[in-house]
Structure formats: C-alpha cells, structure tokens
C-alpha cells in the first residue's frame, strides 16, 4: 500500500502542475444581462450529453461554475448546497458547471461524494458555456428567469468567510426572479480561482 502511494506522488505533482497553468484569455461574453440561455449541450458526469435547458425549473435556472480543487470555490460549497435547496423551493433549477480542463468527471463525482454535494454538476467540455457567458472564476453565478433571460451574473455573496457575509447577492437574485421582480444589482464582480480553459477549444467546436 505504501509503495502505491509513493508511485502516485509524481502523478499528483504532474497533475497539480498542469492545473496551475494560466489558460487563454477569457472571451467577451456573447450572452450578457438580458441575453438568452444558450442552447447548448453539456456532459453529465456519466458521460452523456444533455441540454442545459433541461435543468431549468418553471421559474428559471441558476448556473454556477465550480471547481473540485479551488480552495475559494470549495469554501462556498455549503452555501451552494443551501442555495440549491432555496432555488428548488422557488421553482428554479440549479446546476454546477465544471469547465476546468484539469478536473475530469470522475474527480467531480468523487469530490461531490466527499463533500456531500447533492446538486447536479455538469462538465463543460472545451469550455464552450464558459466562453459564451464570459465566465472567469470559480465560483461565478448566473440566474436565468422563466423565459430563459439572464437576470443576474456575478458573485454568490460578498465574503468567502460565511460568517462575515453582509450582501447575499445570489440569494437576492433568485428571490427576485422567482417573484417576477427585477434584480438589482443585476451584475457584480465574481472572484475566486480562474477557470482552467482549453486553449482555442471553444472556437474550434467539439
């Protein structure tokens, strides 16, 4: 057993080194506030293609870009889990999207198990959705209304430390969308680890 662990160390360092590389520049979003939910297929962790729109509830859809390895994103996981339940109660769907080239589906499955995440996480192969939405970070959130119109984009809240949150931006956005009210502010700055993109993957298609 000890030998196996030793054998894994170089692999772990190799993958970690790959993970730290700076990805290509973030494309300008082609879907901004007021834009429509992209008609795009993502990949389930089991490897099947599925329309993103299938995950919308009757009142809309929350999309959050997530990571398995980013400490910043991981500090938000409990809040994401709570928000997924809040979204369900308000008739909104909720999906996490992993667009990191460095984090395979199997790792997403293990991570969800380890961290007790129950919401669906889809893989964004070739970072197509991340490019369309101009997503830069994990975590970075988007709220679409019942008509599939983007009403909120940005941070989950204003503090990585859950004990110091004073502005619950994403919660406010999904409350407003569920109630048919306008979201204010409709855009905030997300912050966290950068999404590890595949260079040139999105523009070259599948």
């Amino acid at each position: 057993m000890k030998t196996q662990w030793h054998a894994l160390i170089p692999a772990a360092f190799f993958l970690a080194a790959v993970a730290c590389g700076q990805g290509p520049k973030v494309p300008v979003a082609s879907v901004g506030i007021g834009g429509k939910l992209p008609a795009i297929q993502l990949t389930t962790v089991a490897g099947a293609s599925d329309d993103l729109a299938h995950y919308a509830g009757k009142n809309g859809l929350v999309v959050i870009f997530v990571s398995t390895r980013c400490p910043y994103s991981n500090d938000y996981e409990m809040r994401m889990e709570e928000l997924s339940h809040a979204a369900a109660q308000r008739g909104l769907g909720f999906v996490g999207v992993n667009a990191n080239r460095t984090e395979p589906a199997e790792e997403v499955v293990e991570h969800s198990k380890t961290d007790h995440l129950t919401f669906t996480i889809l893989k964004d192969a070739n970072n197509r959705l991340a490019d369309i939405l101009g997503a830069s970070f994990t975590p970075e959130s988007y709220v679409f209304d019942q008509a599939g119109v983007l009403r909120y984009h940005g941070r989950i809240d204003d503090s990585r430390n859950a004990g110091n949150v004073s502005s619950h931006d994403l919660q406010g956005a999904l409350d407003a969308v569920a109630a048919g009210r306008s979201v204010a502010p409709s855009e905030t700055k997300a912050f966290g680890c950068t999404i590890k993109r595949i260079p040139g993957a999105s523009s070259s298609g599948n």
Partner: protein
Amino acid sequence: MNSLGPTGSRSFALVFLALAGFYVAGAEKFLHAQEQSNSAATGDRQAHGTKLSNAEKKTDEVKDPEVIDGTRYLALVKERRGKPLMVSFWATWCEPCRDEYPMVVDLARQYGEKRLSVIGVSLDEDAEAGLMRRFLARAVPGFPNYRKKPGNEEAFINRVNPKWSGALPATFFYSREGQLVTQIVGEAKRETFEAAIQKVIQTQ
C-alpha cells in the same frame, strides 16, 4: 454508466486523495517539499533539521503585513510618487501566484529600490495568514507586503482599478506621478514583465 471497475475506482480514489491533499494543504506542502528537496540535496539529515528550524525562525521574524482596504491602497500608491511603482497582487491559495512570486522578487532585486518601487498585496483570508507569513519567510521579498482586508473583493478591486476583473496573479505598473501605465493579469513571461518595467521607467 460508470466505466470504472472496483480496481479502477480504488486507483482513482488514491490519485484523487493525493491531489486533494496537495491542494488542501496548498502552499504549505509546496513549501515543505521545497525544504525537503533542499535538504535532500545536501544529503545531511542534521542539515535538514537546521534548515527547518531556520525556516521556522524566519517565519517567526516575519511581521504580519498591514491589512489594507482600497482607500489605504490608493494612499500607498500616492506615497510612492516620485518613482515608478510595480504592485504584485497574489495569494497563497493561487498556485500561479506562488509560481510567479520568485520572479517578482528577482525583478525587484534586479531593478533595485533606486529605479523601481515594488510592493506586494496578498488577498489571503485570516485563516491563511499563517501560511502567508511562512510563504513570505521563504520568499524573502525585500519589499513591503500588505494584506487586503478580508471580504468584499468587489469593492477593493474597483478601488484599485474598475477595469480589473480580479483575476490573480495581477501586476500593476504606475508612473512616477502615480498614474496607472500598464498591467499584467495572469501569468506572464519575464520578458513581458521587463517590457512593462521599461515602459513605466521611461514614462515621464
């Protein structure tokens, strides 16, 4: 649909745990690995012990960087007018930042305090303060470092530069008059840094 068999699952779990360990411990393990590597090169167990205790001593000697908000940051830039200024924004949880920092330290030494002021601003949380001190003890930057007041990154980022997304690492270059001349967001080669430094040094 899961294509992993029991053996595959176990192997994957081992790889995943190894990776998770690396990331959770982050810079902590990176630093420790460096120390072990340095020690192994000497082939001297006694030296290993000495090195570790020296590193620990150095960590103790590193003072807590001043915690700053956006207003204090702008004041710091203003205080350094009269000389070009390079500001490096980094965090211990940001691996590209950890990779880049030694180069920033080296550039600061190369250009010297007479030609270029350099400061660092860490975006580490309170819980990462110990790790940050240890990182600084190892890096021996030779220029002042500060730490962003935890929380509300958006307000801080917008005070520094509303056009900055907040992506790390980020380096900002100010003229002698305290005007932002250029910036590098994300990892970049040394030549890119040198070109930015030359540009800011030549700006009147």
